[in-house]
């Protein structure tokens, strides 16, 4: 078992608060620049106001291997509007003028590599990023990356999968800080009706290897999903459902309303905790 992280970021503070309140956190993902950076700024404010505990800002990439069709389309829209990693970091600076919500960049490795690892870490820390999740960087290849990000006080978050062995979970946890991101099922991002039956067992297994908070993602969209995770996980990540709300909305205002509603309902479920039977409905 690894020891709890000693440094305290906005992320670990928020998870500590959630633990004290015995409340499941909500991690909200949006693709940055979908459809514009100005719109994303408003979405982030709406999500934070509605109670999102951590916000993941997706950095659009031309080849989003880990993403399903919803986030693929969002990435295409964001790239079409000219979004770059520079633009995403500028947006973080703007968000920080009015909000202290914990912020995680969710990105693929190549944009970070081309930006320059050192320069990226400096800029991200300076603009107010709290943590970074690089979907296609494995813990095995992450030594330089972790050293450079850690030096700037940035959390490094890695993905664990249902196929991860005990040995693997241990390694992923040892490389992670802030929280561990546990993928609920094999596959890519995208909303699904039901969570897999073996998820509780997977969560128990993951908890036995780390004291880090565990956020569960991939396939989570409904209050019912959130309520079954209470007591098992520390947070639920909702992504494609929010991106889909944005895609379906006729205006930025309408999208803000839809995002608020969804996060409210998820937060309600997280606080109240529906029974498992209700959750299946």
């Amino acid at each position, binding site marked *: 078992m690894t020891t709890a992280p000693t440094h305290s970021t906005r992320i670990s503070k928020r998870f500590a608060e959630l633990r004290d309140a015995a409340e499941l956190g909500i991690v909200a993902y949006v693709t940055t620049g979908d459809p514009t950076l100005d719109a994303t700024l408003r979405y982030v404010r709406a999500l934070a106001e509605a109670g999102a505990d951590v916000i993941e800002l997706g950095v659009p*990439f*031309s*080849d*989003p*291997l*880990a993403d*399903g069709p919803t986030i*693929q389309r969002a990435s*295409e829209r964001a*790239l079409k509007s000219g979004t*770059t*990693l*520079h633009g995403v970091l500028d947006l973080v600076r703007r968000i920080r003028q009015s909000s202290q919500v914990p912020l995680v960049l969710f990105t*693929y*490795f*190549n*944009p*970070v*590599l*081309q*930006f320059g690892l050192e320069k990226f870490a400096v800029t991200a820390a300076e603009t107010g990023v709290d943590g970074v999740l690089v979907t*296609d960087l*494995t813990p*095995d290849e992450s030594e330089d990356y972790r050293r450079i990000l850690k030096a700037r006080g940035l959390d490094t978050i890695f993905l664990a*999968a249902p*196929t*991860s*062995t005990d040995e*693997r979970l241990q390694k992923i946890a040892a490389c992670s800080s802030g929280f561990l991101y546990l993928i609920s099922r*094999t*596959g*890519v991002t995208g909303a699904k009706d039901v969570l897999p039956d073996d998820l509780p067992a997977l969560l128990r297994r993951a908890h036995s290897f780390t004291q880090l908070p565990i956020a569960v993602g991939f396939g989570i969209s409904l209050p019912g999903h959130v309520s079954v995770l209470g007591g098992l996980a520390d947070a639920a990540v909702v992504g494609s459902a929010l991106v889909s709300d944005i895609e379906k909305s006729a205006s930025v205002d309408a999208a803000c309303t839809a995002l608020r509603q969804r996060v409210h309902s998820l937060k309600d479920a997280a606080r109240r905790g529906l029974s498992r039977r209700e959750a299946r409905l």
Partner: protein
Amino acid sequence: MVPLFELERVYELAKFDPAFQADFEDLLKNFAGRPTPLQFASRLTANLGGPRIYLKREDLLHTGAHKINNAIGQGLLALKMGKPRIIAETGAGQHGVASATVAAHLGLQCTVYMGTEDMARQALNVARMRMLGAEVMGVESGSKTLKDAINEAMRDWVTNVRSSHYLLGSVLGAHPYPTMVRDFQAVIGREARAQILAAEKRLPTHLYACVGGGSNAIGLFYEFLNDAHVKMVGIEAGGRGNGLGEHAARLAAHQGFTGARPGVLQGTYTYVLQNEDGQIATTHSISAGLDYPAIGPEHAWLADQRRADYAAVSDQAALEAAQLLSRTEGIIPALESAHALAGLLERLPQFKPTDLVIMNLSGRGDKDMDTYKRLL
């Protein structure tokens, strides 16, 4: 990652498992038709007045290209891992056909991802895959070509990883794929080396092969890596211009092709065509099999070490080379392989008459007849 570890473990065991190797060799011989001839191209040689040119006739293999070598190897691994389904991507359709063929032969289910632009230009291969019982899934994202097909195949694999093996067709992707695919293709160079020694009593001075991901090229080169005086030349797709988006030349900056830098795509660190923000570029080539923004990492290494040279030729040069080979040797080559010949033709003045070339004729041109008919 765990499925990659499993694959690596099973492959490392298979490499030294006499039973696996015997099955592999049996299928290569009796199903695919190995060994392939090393043919002296006498009329081409006479016509050009340059070096003596031999053709490694991978085009004569069952399904018409070298892709079947790797498909057989990985098909057997899928059986060994107890996975009843294989997933494959394809550009020109040759790897898709090879995978569908091996799947049918070994009793596996098969799904092939193919960009819709490639489905249109390689319609014959789409029909072949379907006849063989494979499901062909059109991919509409990105440039609708090989890169996008690989993305979709990888998404399928991570979703169905417990039941499916991803039969990646080139020396690309995460470890162990580049090494494993090279090993399955290295039979090309092993045969060619023995054949040229038998025919000419000496090693070749030059090897030529086209390079998309680079599996036929590494398959030919690998056995000669320690023969320091054997020059190796990989020919990429120069497309219709030097600008980003006009070509698929990753190692030809010396010819003015722009946009290639080290980067990470689909689990590989290599030279990648990309813009300044690290977004992967779209590519263009008349040849679907070479139309890909990254190059196999071992080729990137051979280029950096200066052990192999790389250069690109245009769509037009490839078309003309295909016509030349057809009329001098009676062989209609695949558009991919025609690039290798075009690269050789462009370097003719640099050859001495005593030079001895092996060119990998990696595939036959049946699939490209629509393009040839339209443009020649």
